């Protein structure tokens, strides 16, 4: 835990994003001496100054035997010539190869970066779409509420119908019972009356009625024969 009050992030330089590498390194002449040396001597001695200085120094070292010429000198000369020949001949190819490797690396990484950016942008689009969808939730809830209301209504009406049917069935039963009772009473009364009437017809009355019927029939037949 940082208790000390210390200003942080005060310098202007920022580490991220990392500043890009410079394109080319410092200028170097003949592969050994930086250009700054020549520029340093230019105002006083012009263009040939450093070369004169170099020649003078070389002659001084040789003459005073500060640089001793022995077998190592020959060996160094051979090695240096081979190296310089190799660099001059194959330098460009090696540089192109190295640049290609670098390019591949950078391309791979930028691919990853672009893919990540694309994925994130797609995710942002999705998110915006989801937000837009979420705005319509009021409609969704209205529809759901309507559905539920319809279900309730349908249920209520169903039960109402059931109640009605049940009540009707009970009332029909009562009506049927009454009708049945009425009918039974009627039937019973009719039967009883018939029975009593039949019982009351004595045999004598039966004979009288039969004789009357026969005489009526005779009279009718006579009238019918006359009519024909």
């Amino acid at each position, binding site marked *: 835990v940082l208790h000390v009050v210390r200003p942080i992030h005060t310098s202007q330089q920022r580490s991220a994003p990392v500043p890009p*590498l*410079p*394109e*080319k*390194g*410092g200028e*170097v002449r003949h*592969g*050994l001496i*930086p250009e700054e040396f020549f520029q340093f001597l230019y105002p006083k001695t012009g263009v040939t100054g450093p070369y004169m200085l170099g020649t003078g120094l070389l002659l001084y070292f040789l003459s005073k*035997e*500060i*640089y*001793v010429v*022995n*077998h*190592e000198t020959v060996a160094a000369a051979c090695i240096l010539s081979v190296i310089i020949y190799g*660099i001059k001949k194959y*330098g460009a190819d090696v*540089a192109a190869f190295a*640049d290609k490797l*670098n390019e591949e690396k950078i391309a791979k990484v930028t691919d990853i970066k672009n893919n990540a950016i694309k994925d994130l942008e797609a995710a942002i689009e999705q998110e915006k779409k989801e937000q837009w969808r979420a705005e319509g939730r009021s409609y969704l809830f209205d529809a759901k509420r309507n559905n539920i209301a319809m279900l309730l209504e349908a249920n209520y009406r169903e039960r109402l119908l059931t109640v009605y049917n049940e009540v009707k069935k009970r009332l029909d039963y009562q009506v049927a019972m009454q009708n049945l009772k009425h009918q039974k009473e009627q039937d019973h009364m009719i039967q009883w009356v018939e029975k009593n009437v039949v019982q009351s017809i004595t045999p004598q009355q039966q004979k009288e009625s039969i004789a009357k019927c026969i005489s009526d029939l005779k009279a009718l037949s006579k009238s019918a024969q006359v009519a024909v």
Partner: protein
Amino acid sequence: PLAERRLRDVRLGELPTWLATRDFSPQGLLGGVQKAWNGYCNKYINVRKGGAAGVSMLLAGYCILSYGWSYQHISKISFLMSY
């Protein structure tokens, strides 16, 4: 401010005072060496299109240094005569 100028901006007369302001403790020297090395790397090695110059200067410096170290041995006449 004398203490913050680099060596190339210091006049000849001010050299002793400038040397007095420099930090010659081990940490100071180490810091100076580190800064010099980082400056060299950033200028000649950590670039997009480096060349042979970056490492060849280091090799040349090494050659000259090793020649200086072995000068005493090379300049003896016995060494010169035995080859």
